[in-house]
């Protein structure tokens, strides 16, 4: 069931310019892409930005499959949005909206493909650090995000496993047989993860004493 990591597990090792760029620069580029696509409302700008993102993808030495993967995952969604916009506002708008979404998704795809999770976490810790005086714990925040990232392939995998198990028992049309085990499995997984983190002392707050034992 855990073979689904490839869906999300993003980093593609490399030494390209994009790999070597600091995270803040990539974040700024991502922001620019998003703003250009959604704030200008100009179909030429959006098209040019999308083209630039695709070029960037290959300049960074990322494989073509990596470009197609997020598109495939969102294909139905993109088609629906495109069809709706076509019907409401015509082909130019439909293209502008779809191209804008694609550009933003592919740009964030390029960011995660060229940044290790560890570097992303460090970036998050830095970004959240100013919130410290309001009681935020940046380390914990980063850990939470990484756990969230890790859980996605697990849950996708659990759905697949449970579907196969239901099929093996001839229950593939039974909604309960297909969802309840996923729920139970996910809760058990969350417990096991929480426990393993506690055992490694990783859930402990760094600079606050949490009251009570077994914090």
């Amino acid at each position, binding site marked *: 069931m855990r073979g689904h990591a490839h869906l999300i597990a993003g980093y593609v090792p490399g030494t390209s310019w994009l790999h070597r760029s600091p995270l803040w620069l990539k974040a700024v580029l991502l922001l620019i892409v998003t703003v250009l696509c959604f704030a200008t409302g100009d179909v030429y700008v959006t098209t040019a930005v999308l083209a630039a993102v695709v070029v960037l993808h290959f300049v960074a030495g990322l494989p073509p499959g990596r470009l197609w993967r997020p598109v495939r995952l969102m294909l139905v969604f993109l088609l629906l949005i495109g069809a709706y916009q076509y019907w409401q506002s015509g082909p130019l708008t439909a293209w502008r909206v779809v191209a804008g979404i694609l550009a933003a998704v592919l740009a964030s795809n390029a960011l995660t493909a060229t940044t290790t999770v560890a570097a992303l976490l460090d970036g998050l810790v830095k970004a959240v650090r100013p919130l410290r005086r309001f009681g935020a714990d940046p380390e914990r925040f980063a850990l939470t995000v990484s756990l969230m990232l890790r859980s996605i392939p697990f849950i996708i995998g659990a759905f697949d496993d449970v579907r196969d198990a239901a099929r093996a028992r001839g229950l593939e049309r039974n909604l309960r047989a297909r969802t309840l085990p996923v729920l139970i499995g996910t809760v058990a997984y969350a417990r096991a993860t929480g*426990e393993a983190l506690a055992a490694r002392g990783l859930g402990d707050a760094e600079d606050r004493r949490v009251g009570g034992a077994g914090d």
Partner: protein
Amino acid sequence: MNHVALCGAGVSVETADGNLRTILKPTTVELTEQRIAVIGANGSGKSTLLRLLNSLMLPSSGTVTINGLDTRTQGRAVRRQVGFVFTDPLSQLVMPTPLEDIELSLRRVHKSAPERRSAAAGVLEQYGLGALAANSIYELSGGERQLVALATVLAVQPRLLVLDEPSTLLDLRNSRLLRSRLAALPQQLIMATHDLELAQDCTRALVVDDGAIVFDGPAADAVARYRRMYS
């Protein structure tokens, strides 16, 4: 040397129908040997006993102390001294690659990212896992994964290592590999296991049955006793 002591430590849990169920009877024992095995049937209370040592579980009665630290009031300090290895390494590995997972272990030790990275790489090299540093943890074999999980725990240099059936998911070759790796560690080890070969490697073994230690002595005698219990 560590001083691990259970003093009348027992565990009761509330069952679904609201009754209290004793899963570990009040136990008094000192664990100072370098290699200690805990053996017993499924559901006998081995994991419960081990979880007390890392303050993953708190005793409902009595106390558990590790080098004088009470697991109830000094849980954080206890966890810094006691590493815990689970049966399933996937529940223990959080990050996508071994290198990143070890870096996560080292976050408290090294504040600077480059330092942390090279220290993490060093830990992997030290345990002969350098070649796997950037692989996805999902693509490692079960044996490699368990060795990586072990390395993530050893990275912070615990004084005591507690292992809950570390070889249960491994094939014969990998459990032998794990055994030899464990044998080479300088730390004190306390492990629950169904792997009687692994148990025989220890100097002392506890046999647990129905929430109580029913035998405590040399590992060979404990294994013989355990075999007799089910023949």
